[in-house]
């Protein structure tokens, strides 16, 4: 019973998903009308519960799942994401498909999977949650089943994702073998504690395979090939979701597996992640420069953003600063990227296009929307006073602080420099869209009307993006408290 109390958010979300499905079963109309609000209610309750039990700490389910501050952070984060997605999807889903309630049920399930991933401390539980996340995501990407692009994106996502799962599972099985049959992360760390550092090729291979698997799931370069098609084809609210949700989950798992289970092999995985971070930032930004479709552009942009965040993991070997930086960056990224997608949805609901050229003269047709988008672009590019700047500031700062240790960690200086130069490159494409929005004449002058649900969520995301840039301390404290569980100080 005690254990069940600790799992409030998970239970609420599961129950709500079932309820939404049941309501839809009873009456199709009730499902259409009530599903979004029921979902929202469940999410708000979940957030309240997660906040109330923020400091709870206990292992449950036979040490396969842990409730701690770190999980609390990801519970709140994923529930906030889902809530914003509900606002973003309402008109979009109603306009484009007749299967409304199922969409929200799926959204709740995928949210649950993110929470489960963040709390898993056992390889089997991690793998199962990853599959849960993947399968629900595939379905959501292909939700517009009459749309060829949606189906294409879904299939591609599915094929790549399945291969990735297999690779990851193989890596995990090697870890299981090398640790003499342990699946629990803490016990794996204990089993490796006496192994001579950096000599075990088996473990290095296991680490590589596991990271490759993670890399596919969270779309890090060079394992990102599925993401532009999936982003472009998916219903835009789903694109918004997969640009944020799986990444949030991925960083939770990455932090747990690398920092909890494999601290002994830090020099191996930091080098690998160093390279992946550098490639993701550079490739994501350079390819984004050439995109003409805003959803594809944001796909590459989010690859680059993931690269910046990865710096925090690489820089995290000695201190908790890197992980704290990632969490702050994640908060910033959630509000910024979701806000941006909501703006894209609002505009595409009116112009029925995602081509960047069709954003010409947007400021004349939807000035508030254009202003919000500029703020989001500034935040993604890391220009103050926005949330994204604070995220980059902390992540780059963690890298430079860790580099002080000297020796191989001085490579981190270069990673910070690569990141900084990349954020200049990113201005090239973010502000190319701004150029269309503000400098080009519009094709037509009719004002774009934005529905209240979109307006509310957009205003919230904009306000948070600015607030976090101007008053960052509460967010930093929040992140600081959340990483305590990982860095037991």
């Amino acid at each position, binding site marked *: 019973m005690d254990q069940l109390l600790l799992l409030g958010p998970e239970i609420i979300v599961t129950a709500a998903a079932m309820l939404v499905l049941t309501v839809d079963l009873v009456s199709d109309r009730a499902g259409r009308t009530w599903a979004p609000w029921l979902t929202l209610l469940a999410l708000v309750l979940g957030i309240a519960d997660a906040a109330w039990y923020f400091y709870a700490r206990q292992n449950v389910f036979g040490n396969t799942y842990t409730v701690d501050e770190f999980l609390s952070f990801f519970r709140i984060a994923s529930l906030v994401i889902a809530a914003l997605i509900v606002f973003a999807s309402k008109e979009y889903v109603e306009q484009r498909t007749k299967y409304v309630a199922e969409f929200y049920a799926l959204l709740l399930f995928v949210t649950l999977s993110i929470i489960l991933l963040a709390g898993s401390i056992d390889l089997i539980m991690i793998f199962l949650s990853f599959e849960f996340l993947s399968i629900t995501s595939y379905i959501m990407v292909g939700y517009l089943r009459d749309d060829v692009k949606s189906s294409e994106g879904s299939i591609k996502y599915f094929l790549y994702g399945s291969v990735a799962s297999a690779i990851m599972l193989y890596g995990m099985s090697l870890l299981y073998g090398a640790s003499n049959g342990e699946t629990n992360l803490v016990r794996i760390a204990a089993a490796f504690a006496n192994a001579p550092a950096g000599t075990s090729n088996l473990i290095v291979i296991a680490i590589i395979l596991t990271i490759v698997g993670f890399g596919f799931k969270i779309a890090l370069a060079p394992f990102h090939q599925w993401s532009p098609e999936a982003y472009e084809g998916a219903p835009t609210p789903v694109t918004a979701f997969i640009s944020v949700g799986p990444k949030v989950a991925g960083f939770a798992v990455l932090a747990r597996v690398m920092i909890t289970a494999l601290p002994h092999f830090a020099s191996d995985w930091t080098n690998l992640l160093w390279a992946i971070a550098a490639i993701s930032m550079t490739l994501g930004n350079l390819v984004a420069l050439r995109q003409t479709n805003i959803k594809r552009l944001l796909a590459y942009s989010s690859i680059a953003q993931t690269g910046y965040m990865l710096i925090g993991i690489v820089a995290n070997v000695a201190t908790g600063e890197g992980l704290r930086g990632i969490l702050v960056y994640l908060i910033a990224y959630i509000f910024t990227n979701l806000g941006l997608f909501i703006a894209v949805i609002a505009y595409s609901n009116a112009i029925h296009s995602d081509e960047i050229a069709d954003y010409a003269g947007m400021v004349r047709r939807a000035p508030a929307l254009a202003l919000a988008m500029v703020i989001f672009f500034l935040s993604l590019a890391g220009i103050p006073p926005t949330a994204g700047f604070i995220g980059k500031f902390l992540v780059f700062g963690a890298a430079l602080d860790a580099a002080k240790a000297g020796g191989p960690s001085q490579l981190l200086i270069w990673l910070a420099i690569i990141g900084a130069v990349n954020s200049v490159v990113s201005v090239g494409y973010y502000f190319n869209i701004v150029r269309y929005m503000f400098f080009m004449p519009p094709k037509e002058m009719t004002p774009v009307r934005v529905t209240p649900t979109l307006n509310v969520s957009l205003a919230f995301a904009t306000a948070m993006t600015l607030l976090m840039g101007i008053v960052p301390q509460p967010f*930093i404290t929040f992140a600081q408290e959340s990483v305590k569980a990982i860095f037991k100080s």
Partner: protein
Amino acid sequence: MYIPYLLTYIIFIPTILGTLPILFMRSESLIKRWAILVSLVPLVLSVLLWFGFTPNGTMQQEEVAPWIPTLNINYHLGVDGVSVPMVFLTTLLTVIALFYSSYVINNRVKEYFALFLLLETGMLGVFCSLDFFLFYIFWEIGLVPMYFLIGIWGHAEDRPQYSALKFFIYTLIGSVLMLLAILGLYFQTGTFDLLLLPLKIKAVTDPLVLNLAFWGIFAAFAIKVPMWPFHTWLPDAHTAAPTAGSVILAGVLLKLGAYGFIRILMPVFPGVLASYAGMIIAVLAVISIVYGAFVSMAQTDLKRLIAYSSVNHMGYTMLGIGAAAIAVGNTAPGIADARAIALNGAVLQMFNHGIITGGLFLLVGMLYERAHTRRVDAFGGLAAAVPRYYGLMMLTAFASLGLPALAGFVSEFMIFRGAFAIIPGLAAIGVLGIVITAAFILWKIIQMVFLGPLDQEKYSEMEHHLTPQVVAEYWERATGRMKDMTPWEVVSMVPLAVFMILIGLYPKPIIDIINGAAVSIINLMG
């Protein structure tokens, strides 16, 4: 005299009372009047700041409040004798720019005035920040409005979109390198405070850290000044920007870079500057002086010409800064005085360049409104047609070339007086720049535009290509001549002209203010 929150009011009134309400206003004439009215408030307050300032080397009107305690970041403001003239310059030029714009900007008025006031907040914030993090935030805030000002209201034939992005990217490259340097310094010293940093940095001995941090920050400031070879964004940005944008760009934004050298690089890195970087600054400054002057002479577009003359004039400032920086630790007699004189001259030159070049851009803008061309060879003999304009242009141009009894002379004289005592060879080459400057200003601006006979046919032809609206506004139908300056155009130029003469004749009040700060920075460097 301490006035609580004075600096906060000066910095944020343009945004809080200006930008935000303007976003919700509908009437264009109301927006224009409101913007000018709001911009007058910081001007009045900065006059108050000036007269409430005790001319010594201390920081005054300081405000400290914790902002991000986890990282030891504070909201720390304060001004010394370097900042006060810059704050005044910024508020003055903003009022003039907005006043002038209210007559010529009739397209997307709301965005224009909202952005302009946001820009003012960014610039003022840089001059008042005593926390490196805060400094950086304000530094970046100024970037975005200027990008839009160039891109939206730039002249279509000057590739405004390209120039705006170029300006943005160039400045941002410097900024991000500075950001890394700021972080690097923080993790070495544990502080972002600009008053503590010069003291704490003494404990840092690793030359790699010091040099990397120095060059990171140097990049940001050198691009902004701009020093040769980082200047290539400047002619494009200046040419494309609307008149008031050019005024602010030349008048204030370039000063941010030079101000950064004085406020941050000089006190924090005396060792690096003394060992080799000061010499590099001085050499780059002399190259900027000579190169800027020569390239300026080769221009046929008046705006480009003045833009390159900015490279030249900011070169003098940097020469003064370089000279003051090279001689760290040099105790030979007279050197300390020479350094102080050079630094005083550099700061005064920043102020003078602001009013003089701001004035030049304003005047060229007025000419462009009439003729819709800026090619020097399109004009000729204008002296007789537009005597008021000619008079003000003569005054400003002579101030720019450094005629004694006008502002430019005083500061250039002080810089060279200081520099000759420290780096005579470089100073001697730098003096060449003054000669070339005099040559191109006299030849290209005064002679080609104003002197000679007025070729009536040329102007009839010019008028022929203009829209009826422009002709009605700026040309005399009966004679087919350009109209002389309108009263509001005169009003926007007069304050600048007054300062050119005042500082030229009696620079003591402003030098008194600057000197205390200059001496204390020199002492801090050792």
